[in-house]
């Protein structure tokens, strides 16, 4: 069996914000390499727009404790409060570190990092929106990704670009490496390591309308499941309220932070009905449900399933007057065309390019879009992966970023907290791995066997003469999940979804592909990735079906209330080789905030 062999103390899979931050920190002390199926700067961190949350108080009073409470409340009280407090307390320091790395934040008039309002972030005393999102125009994620990659070049981090991870090497319950496929040549590589960090991002393509790149296929979490390990809180998947109609392209919450309002087909601003205090700046689950309810009530634009996001200065300034919304100096807020064009430059470009709308003159057609996985690979606060609901660790395995679940986002993530999660826990994970591996020796692996297993899986796809198409199966999965495991959920729909997903998994065994070659065979890799998405869709649907309450992004018509007595707990889902799903639960860590009813 032919393969290439590499040995590094630390292997990080994925080169987005979390992977690169971890690589920088681990790489300072131990031999570290990053494997990425994309060139690092293609990672989807680059799509994040509005900002990274940190209570710097550059423009008005703010405190990390307020940020922590907002996050706990945003999470609908199912986030782990110790981890949330750590993240929000660490936030200012990590943001200053990004600035010291050269990140070009926008500036306040006195030269500090600029901050803007965002959904769910409030002054805990007045309950009004607070300026906490540190931003660089509307491409903060792009700036973070570029800055971290630049620093990796500066510090000579090892990269294996365009290598697809196909398996984890697990021996005696320990992670000891990775098998990866070099996309250019089709050759297999064994990466022997003391520590493996998964930082593979999300899996939005499980749904039809998504803000995610189509390369986000949940490879890390799917492999974790396949090795008999659990995933946490998979039923909590965020639908961002404002995706561009039909395309799902993210239109940042910063549009609303800067004053944009949501208008239904009757021309009414509807958010005051659903969130009287902060209106459009309620948390994302609340706003997505409001849009959905407007559409269900026949108030969509032209009777269709979308509404308008209006950021034309005329409308915005009108509502600043109505709301009596003022600047810190007491003047009524006001925006103009130039402000929209410079502060929301990229989204102006998206609107012009894809729907022919100039947002300074016309409203933007929007609908909820599958955006972010709150759940994922369970970890402790040091990014160590958990083996079970009892909290035992998987030696050698780590996870950070969207593919992990610490859990800092609970039932619903606040805007700006994803970028924060990446850099805070990427940094912490990098430091922890460096310390851990110094105490460890390389343990033996059977590289031949690891390669043979992967080769057999690839051959099973390459040599399959079935009549099914992985692209069709993927589309059917998207349709099922969009119809029944989306913004609103009910028992019958989800039960039917589970049944249909099981049928798709059977059909997936009979796919065939056209490309049998070795060079740049994306046909083969995409077929393999559909298998990952199917596993994640199934455990999402099963976890959702079991949770008989409404909390955060998991909203059920048949159980409309939150049920803290029975359901204030994290789901831990296991999937065996036959497709059998087992659900277990673990308690939520509460430090000092008891659940209260969530109103915005």
């Amino acid at each position, binding site marked *: 069996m032919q393969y290439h062999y590499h040995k590094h103390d630390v292997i990080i899979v994925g080169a987005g914000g979390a992977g690169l931050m971890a690589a920088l920190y681990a790489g300072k002390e131990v031999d570290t390499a990053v494997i990425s199926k994309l060139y690092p700067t293609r990672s989807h961190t680059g799509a994040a727009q509005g900002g990274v949350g940190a209570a710097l108080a550059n423009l008005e009073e703010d405190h990390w404790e307020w940020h922590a409470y907002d996050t706990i409340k945003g999470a609908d009280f199912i986030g782990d409060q110790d981890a949330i407090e750590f993240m929000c307390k660490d936030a200012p320091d990590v943001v200053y570190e990004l600035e*010291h790395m050269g990140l070009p934040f926008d500036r306040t008039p006195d030269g*500090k990092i600029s901050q803007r309002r965002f959904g769910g972030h409030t002054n805990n005393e007045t309950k009004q929106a607070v300026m906490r999102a540190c931003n660089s125009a509307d491409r903060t994620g792009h700036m973070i990704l570029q800055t971290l990659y630049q620093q990796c070049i500066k510090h000579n981090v090892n990269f294996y670009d365009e290598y697809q991870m196909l398996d984890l090497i697990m021996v005696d319950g320990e992670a000891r490496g990775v098998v990866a496929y070099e996309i250019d040549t089709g050759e297999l590589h064994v990466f022997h390591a003391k520590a493996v960090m998964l930082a593979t991002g999300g899996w939005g393509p499980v749904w039809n309308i998504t803000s995610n790149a189509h390369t986000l296929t949940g490879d890390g979490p799917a492999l974790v499941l396949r090795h008999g390990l659990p995933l946490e809180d998979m039923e909590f998947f965020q639908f961002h309220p404002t995706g561009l109609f039909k395309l799902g*392209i993210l239109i940042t919450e910063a549009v609303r932070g800067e004053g944009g309002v949501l208008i239904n087909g009757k021309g009414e601003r509807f958010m005051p009905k659903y969130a009287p205090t902060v209106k459009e700046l309620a948390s994302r689950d609340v706003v997505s449900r409001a849009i959905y309810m407007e559409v269900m009530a026949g108030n969509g634009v032209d009777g269709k399933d979308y509404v308008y996001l209006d950021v034309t200065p005329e409308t915005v300034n009108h509502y600043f007057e109505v709301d009596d919304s003022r600047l810190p100096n007491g003047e009524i807020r006001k925006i103009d065309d130039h402000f929209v064009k410079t502060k929301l430059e990229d989204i102006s470009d998206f609107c012009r390019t894809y729907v022919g709308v100039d947002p300074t003159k016309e409203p933007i057609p929007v609908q909820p879009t599958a955006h972010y996985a709150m759940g994922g690979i369970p970890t402790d606060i040091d990014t160590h992966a958990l083996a079970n609901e009892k909290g035992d660790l998987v030696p050698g395995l780590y996870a950070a970023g969207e593919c992990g679940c610490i859990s800092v986002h609970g039932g619903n993530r606040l805007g700006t907290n994803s970028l924060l999660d990446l850099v805070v826990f990427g940094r912490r994970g990098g430091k922890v791995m460096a310390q851990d591996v110094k105490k460890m020796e390389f343990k033996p692996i059977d590289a031949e066997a690891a390669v043979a297993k992967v080769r057999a899986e690839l051959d099973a796809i390459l040599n399959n003469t079935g009549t099914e198409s992985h692209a069709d199966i993927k589309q059917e999965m998207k349709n099922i999940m969009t119809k029944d495991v989306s913004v609103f959920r009910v028992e019958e729909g989800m039960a039917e979804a589970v049944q249909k997903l099981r049928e798709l998994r059977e059909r997936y065994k009979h796919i065939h592909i056209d*490309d049998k070659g070795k060079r740049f065979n994306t046909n083969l890799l995409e077929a393999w990735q559909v298998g990952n998405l199917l596993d994640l869709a199934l455990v999402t649907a099963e976890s959702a079906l079991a949770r008989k309450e409404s909390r955060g992004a998991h909203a059920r018509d048949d159980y409309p209330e939150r049920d803290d007595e029975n359901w204030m707990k994290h789901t831990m889902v296991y999937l065996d080789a036959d497709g059998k799903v087992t659900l277990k639960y673990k308690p939520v860590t509460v430090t000092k905030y008891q659940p209260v009813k969530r109103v915005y």
Partner: protein
Amino acid sequence: MQVTLKIQRFNPEKDSAPYWKEYSLDMHPNDRVLDALLYIKNHIDGTLTMRSSCAHGICGSDAMRINGVNQLACKSLFSKVGNNVTIEPIAGLPVIKDLVVDMEPFMEHYRSVLPFFINDDPAPEKERLQSEEDRLKFEESTKCILCACCTTSCPTFWATDAYVGPAAIVQAHRFIFDSRDQGSQQRLEILADPDGVWRCRTIFNCTNACPREIKVTEAIAEVKKEILFSKL
């Protein structure tokens, strides 16, 4: 609308030279060229190979030559490119397969200009201050996504692959004009090399190709001026 796509195909395991293949499809005017390519890959011929990821113009994976002009397939709508569309890989880099080129020579040029923040002073406790005006001086060049549309549209780069190319100069510009950075002199020396900025003949192909609407030629001119000025 009925569209005809004429795509340059090449499989290194089978073909001795690239060839053209035509596909007829029914697409909507608002569909992206990328949508058509993915349709072909998913439903007609799974061997068609291209890079793509975000599908909305921010990751830079799917740069290709569409009707003779470098652009991102995910930002090219049929309403703009029309119904007879020719698609080739970007020029000046070795073709691996179909529309996929070897990006390494491009990345090597990028890495050569010290594309990272340099400031060896001890960092302050909070942020380094920068005026809004200073921040704006390099705003344009921060938008670069390294898609290579500019560099691979440059006739000088086609003729001389040692030329560092517009993308690398834009990346250097991003730091040279950052008031917080201290590495400008080193970068200007690198770019004053015969294969640096002076190879630019101000043809403006790069500016026309940039999907991020960066005024690339202007950025190159600013760097040229800075080299002249700093040597005075």
